[in-house]
């Protein structure tokens, strides 16, 4: 083996280890939040294995939660497809941003494997890293984040009914805590987003108060309507998008 190959190998290994290192705090957070997601899965009638499978394959907090509310309501297949699409629409944007950071000759298999686990957090650490995107870094992070997320969900389904009600109700707000942690920091920087958060809270409350639609259907209608109106009234400029 030539000297450069050896160096290259140890460099590659360190990128992978760096990914694992940065993935550990994410995995811990995922474990706590997915446990709470598991409680939602249990309420929808899923078994621990089914909960595990959903989290392993979907890797999405809001998307899975929305899906569980639909399953609980025995919704039509098209409805669950639609709500998964809406709740996960942000990943489309994140993948667009990530693709700009990839070398144009990055093989398709790496694009697919990395794309499988584009989440708010894993996208965040990958995009924050300097230079050309290195899939090995993401694989390192995924190696710890995926088990944290899927095993947490399975445990939430399994243990959710053994734990005292008091603990379960406390844990079930973890998921909303995660949502809050995603929406508030950008709302602080951007008044339009802050305004939209308030509008969303109020209209969601009104829809729920009058029981106009099921929870999942309300989410679809309100998201599509409010975001479309916002895009018409407050269209974004390119510079703003890059800054965000």
């Amino acid at each position: 083996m030539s000297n450069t190959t050896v160096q290259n190998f140890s460099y590659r290994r360190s990128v992978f280890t760096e990914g694992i290192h940065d993935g550990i705090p994410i995995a811990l957070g995922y474990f706590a939040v997915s446990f709470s997601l598991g409680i939602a899965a249990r309420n929808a009638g899923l078994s621990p294995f089914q909960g595990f499978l959903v989290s392993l394959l979907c890797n999405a907090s809001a998307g899975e939660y929305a899906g569980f509310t639909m399953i609980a309501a025995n919704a039509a297949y098209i409805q669950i497809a639609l709500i998964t699409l809406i709740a996960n629409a942000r990943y489309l944007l994140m993948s667009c941003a990530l693709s700009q950071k990839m070398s144009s000759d990055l093989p398709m298999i790496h694009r697919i494997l990395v794309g499988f686990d584009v989440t708010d957090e894993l996208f965040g650490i990958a995009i924050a890293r300097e230079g050309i995107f290195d899939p090995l870094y993401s694989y390192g992070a995924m190696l710890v984040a995926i088990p944290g997320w899927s095993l947490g969900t399975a445990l939430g389904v399994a243990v959710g009914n053994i734990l005292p009600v008091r603990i379960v109700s406390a844990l079930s707000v973890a998921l909303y805590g995660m949502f809050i942690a995603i929406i508030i920091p950008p709302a602080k920087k951007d008044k339009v987003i802050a305004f939209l958060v308030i509008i969303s809270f109020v209209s969601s409350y009104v829809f729920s108060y009058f029981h106009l639609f099921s929870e999942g259907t309300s989410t679809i209608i309100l998201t599509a309507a409010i975001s479309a109106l916002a895009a018409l009234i407050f269209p974004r400029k390119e510079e703003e998008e890059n800054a965000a």
Partner: protein
Amino acid sequence: MQHNIYIYIFIMAAVSFVIRILPLTLIQKQIKSRFIRSFLYYVPYVTLSVMTFPAILYAGASQLSGALALLTGILLAYFNAGLFKVAVSCCLVVLLIGFIQ
């Protein structure tokens, strides 16, 4: 009509997968339409807000504890406490209020 749980799971997985890999594989160009870009930009914040409220009020032991968890979460997130801290603090608030009530 009763639906098959594995078909539900398959649909969720397929949609989640396709939405993520499309921009990385097929659409490698930037989306041009300003309306679509703005729409996609706003969707996550709106959908997460809609799902959080009022659902958080009914997730805790009482509406009061849910409301306090929401306020705590907003305050902490405002002062940049990360995901894990915010989520755990919300849980602790509900737990604490549960002991008092």
